[in-house]
């Protein structure tokens, strides 16, 4: 079976600091795959590299066989060309606006008399010709180059931003909970659904029929997800008012709202009590049963060993072991670097 | 609550109507009282009050009330269109108001003129100098018709307009022996307008205009501009602006940059505060101020009496604009006195028919546009830290 996610020799450098070095692993569809390692091993950095928060300094991340990026295509062409044309017109106009105005409007309009549009507009041409290439076409050219160039550079720079990655089917949660605190629990889930919803600005502004249809469907689905994580009774509350454990669950529901094929959970059990941890293990299993592949960072060995199909161990940014839970449990390097300390401490 | 206050308020409203009937006539003024123009407007208000006191606060047994409205708002620190419109509307609604003295800024008048015109309430400005408000062909194509939606003239002014002052200023500059001039303006309606007229007239007179700059009146200094002016070698710097738009700072920066040329300013700077702001030593002997009227100490007859009374009452020399406040108040009260019916229409009719008015500025009339026929302009210089009358201009 083709892997759903391939992390291929990813290196992350920040100035002189190397957070990940040459990390590789593959996640098969339907797996629960765990990344473990001591604090500062570079696990979250790796997550950020996968989700597009950071760009890998070297290596690549492939999702379902290809790197997630905005495609070169008609949209790009339209965008660059459009910006170029608009900025060309704008720059040329900005340079000539006063003389154009005088020739077209002021010269052809006598107060109180009708305005001959055709005649007036025909006066624009001579003005531009008189200004000469240096003042008419040069600004337009510079405008087109700068505008089009900037549009292209920005596109290039934003080719693999988190929203692009998320829309491709990878959703995530955060280690330090990042819910939208002032929004209600339900709205948090609806935000997670953003990319799956279609209504545009005008439909929302004017509340066209399509708005109501989608609102109905999206709410049903959001409530279903809240029921799935056990939060349906808290739907109208502000997210910030939820207790910690429930906030973690809400993060999961929010991530699931986008119907991802791969879900990244960043220490979902952090700060949970043993009962909650057990419930969480069950929840992760249920998520897998829904057909979502899970990539997990976790410190709680009970959770990791309980749900994972395979485990990758990082230390000081490097992969030191990979395999099934049993293999990891018996791997001497892991025991020395991580497990031993953890279990003794 | 509501039920109880309703009759109370209604009776109050009735009472105020009744008061108007038993003979109170109200004059309001709308001037920017908050912010930087406060000094001039205070002297105008003083002038208005003196005019009212002169008639004993009553005419034909009817009490004259006066309200000093502010057309500036604190958040703007300058005239505010909303407040000016509000003042005009309030004056229109108050039946007892028979005269509106204002405004100080021509821009504000553009807002309130149509409102007052529709109500037929007479408006006399002691400070507006933008020509387009009254004179056809001097401003935009649709001016001044648009300020008179009723078709009748209700707006009058006792000050000569910028087109006159800018003209005589350029002529005076020529007389002073200047051959080249550097023009500055503050990019406000008044300053830019007067500098435009100056520029046009200067070119006609054969003065070389070496440069024209619009400045930021809030800048902390103009030293860079002064360097540029010095390099241009102009022998006159004309600034279309006021004390508030930093005319004093320009004088200082010109001197410290080593510019030795003359410096000429319009009457927006004809106030004690200009000398205080610029520092007398920076103006001494090189600064020339034009003024659309005569300074108080040159006045004869009624004007001289006004000056004495003003000094006796406020213990300071009246500023140039005090006289215009006084004159506006007097011409209005005179019209009230002459009006047969003490109503808005009556008063308006009386103001319109003002001819050969014995004013503090001499004898003058309102012309068919509502402008004063007084054309007296004067030129001042600064000597010994005081304004010194030099000559009558434009005669």
């Amino acid at each position, binding site marked *: 079976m083709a892997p759903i996610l391939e992390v291929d020799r990813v290196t992350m450098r920040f100035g002189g600091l190397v957070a990940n070095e040459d990390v590789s692993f593959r996640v098969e569809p339907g797996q629960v795959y765990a990344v473990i390692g001591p604090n500062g091993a570079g696990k979250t950095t790796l997550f950020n590299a996968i989700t597009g928060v950071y760009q890998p300094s070297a290596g690549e991340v492939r999702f379902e066989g290809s790197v997630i990026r905005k495609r070169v295509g008609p949209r790009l062409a339209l965008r660059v060309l459009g910006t170029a044309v608009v900025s060309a017109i704008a720059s040329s106009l900005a340079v000539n606006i006063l003389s154009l105005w005088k020739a077209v*409007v002021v010269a052809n*309009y006598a107060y109180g008399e009708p305005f001959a549009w055709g005649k007036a507009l025909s006066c624009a041409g001579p003005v531009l010709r008189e200004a000469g290439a240096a003042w008419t076409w040069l600004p337009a050219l510079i405008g087109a180059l700068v505008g089009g160039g900037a549009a292209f550079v920005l596109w290039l720079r934003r080719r693999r931003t*988190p*929203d692009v990655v*998320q829309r491709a089917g990878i959703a995530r949660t955060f280690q330090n909970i990042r819910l939208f605190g002032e929004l209600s629990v339900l709205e948090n889930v609806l935000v997670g659904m953003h990319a799956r919803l279609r209504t545009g600005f005008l439909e929302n502004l004017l509340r066209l029929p399509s708005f109501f249809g989608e609102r109905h469907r999206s709410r049903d689905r959001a409530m279903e997800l809240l029921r799935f994580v056990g939060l349906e009774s808290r739907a109208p509350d502000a997210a910030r008012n939820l207790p910690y454990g429930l906030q973690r669950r809400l993060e999961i529901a929010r991530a699931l709202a986008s119907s991802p094929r791969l879900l990244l959970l960043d220490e979902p059990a952090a700060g949970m009590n043993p009962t909650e941890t057990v419930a969480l293990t069950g929840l992760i299993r249920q998520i897998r049963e829904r057909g979502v592949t899970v990539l997990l960072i976790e410190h709680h060995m009970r959770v990791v060993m309980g749900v994972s199909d395979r485990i990758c161990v990082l230390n000081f940014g490097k992969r030191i072991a990979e395999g099934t839970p049993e293999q990891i449990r018996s791997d001497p390097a892991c025991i020395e670097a991580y497990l031993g300390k953890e279990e003794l401490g | 609550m509501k039920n109880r206050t309703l009759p109370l308020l209604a009776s109050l409203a009735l009472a105020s109507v009744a008061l108007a009937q038993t003979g109170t006539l109200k004059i309001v003024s709308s001037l920017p009282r908050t912010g930087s123009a406060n000094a001039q407007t205070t002297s105008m208000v003083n002038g208005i009050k003196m005019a009212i006191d002169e008639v004993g606060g009553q005419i034909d047994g009817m009490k004259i009330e006066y309200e000093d409205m502010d057309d500036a708002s*604190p958040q703007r620190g300058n005239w505010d*269109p909303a407040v000016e419109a509000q003042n005009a509307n309030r004056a229109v609604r108050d039946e007892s108001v028979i005269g509106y003295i204002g405004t100080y800024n021509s821009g504000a008048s553009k807002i309130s003129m149509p409102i007052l015109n529709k109500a037929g309430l007479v408006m006399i400005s002691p400070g507006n100098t933008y020509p387009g408000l009254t004179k056809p062909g001097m401003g935009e194509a649709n001016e001044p018709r648009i300020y008179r939606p009723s078709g009748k003239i209700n707006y009058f002014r006792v000050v000569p307009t910028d087109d006159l002052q800018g003209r005589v200023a350029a002529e005076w500059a020529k007389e002073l022996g200047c051959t080249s001039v550097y023009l500055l303006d503050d*990019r406000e309606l008044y300053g830019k307008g007067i500098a435009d007229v100056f520029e046009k007239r200067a070119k006609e007179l054969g003065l070389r205009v070496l440069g024209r700059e619009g400045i930021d009146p809030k800048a902390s200094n103009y030293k860079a501009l002064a360097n540029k002016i010095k390099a241009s070698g102009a022998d006159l710097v004309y600034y279309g602006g006021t004390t508030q738009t930093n005319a004093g700072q320009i004088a200082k920066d010109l001197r410290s940059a080593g510019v030795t040329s003359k410096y000429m300013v319009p009457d927006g700077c004809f106030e004690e505060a200009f000398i205080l702001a610029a520092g007398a030593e920076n103006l001494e002997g090189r600064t020339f101020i034009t003024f659309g009227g005569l300074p108080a100490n040159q006045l004869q007859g009624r004007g001289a009496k006004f000056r004495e009374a003003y000094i006796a009452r406020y213990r300071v020399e009246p500023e140039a604009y005090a006289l215009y406040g006084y004159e506006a108040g007097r011409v209005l009260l005179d019209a009230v006195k002459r009006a047969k019916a003490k109503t808005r229409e009556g008063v308006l009719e009386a103001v319109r028919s003002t001819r050969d008015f014995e004013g503090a500025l001499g004898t003058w009339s309102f012309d068919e546009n509502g402008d004063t026929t007084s054309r007296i302009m004067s030129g001042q210089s600064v000597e010994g830290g005081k304004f010194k009358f030099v000559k009558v201009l434009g005669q």
Partner: protein
Amino acid sequence: MIRGRSLSPSWILLGGAVLLGLLDRPLGLGLVDPMRGVLVFALLGLGLNVVTGFTGLLHLGMAAFMAIGAYAFAIGTCDIYPFQLGFWPAMVLTVVVGAVAGFLLGAPTLGLRGDYLAIVTLGFGEIVQDVMKNMDAITKGTQGINPLPPPVLPGVGELGSEEGPWYWLFLGLLVLAVMACRNLERSRTGRAWLAVREDELAASCMGIAPIPAKMYAFATGAALAAMAGGLWASLYASTGEPGNYDFQVSILALCIVIVGGMGSIDGVLVGSLAMIGVANIALPKLAAWLQARGVVDPSNVLGSPNNWKYLVFGVVLMVMMRVRPEGLLPARLGRVGGGR
């Protein structure tokens, strides 16, 4: 949004405004005239609320869009220009021009963060003022453009000097704007804005592209501000001068939003009533009252009530913030943006 709130403060306030409109004349309050200004500033505040309140972008150049609106409306309608559109077509044009201007400013700068964006907007405000002043061949410089046509209503005709119809029209437009903002806030678009305000990175990890979302907010805010500018100009039949749309106006708009409560539509309505009410209604009335009592001594700087206005206005701002740091009517789910 899921709890049906039977009567939100917005509707109570607007209902109060309707009541005021009905009772003003019989009671002789004379409040309808100054209230028109409050309504226009409420529109401006709604625009800024979309940008600052919903999307969390500190915007210090709202006056620029108001100016753009006023001048677009003026150039479209005034008879010294050949276009001479009627009120309604010109108003549509105004809103479109505002939105485009917002888009053009936003496109290169919305990648900036927090206070850097704030100063860019501030700078934009200054530049727009300079352009309006300096391009006098087009904008008539400091003269301002007048006269501008009053609105035309079916059945009423052109609105004249009678304040009532103006008041009702502005109130109607404000109600429409409130409804529009409400619709947006409780939709996919608005949720994206709120999410970007709460946590831009998390929002982008939820599939929201932050820059387009901000762009929509910016353009919506600019369009509302432009509409406020157009109405403002129509109300006074003049654009006034470019200096009328200076930094102080932007600051006033910001005060309206924050004093009212960030991100709260109800708050904007209360805030504009509080700010413009204090500055343009209460303070003049207070000054007039003191004057009528003769408590005025113009020979002394302290003696004139007008000289106290800045102080009173400033103290009112500080006290409001001290007493209700989260604003008078905070957004629906409790405190917004607590801490820093």
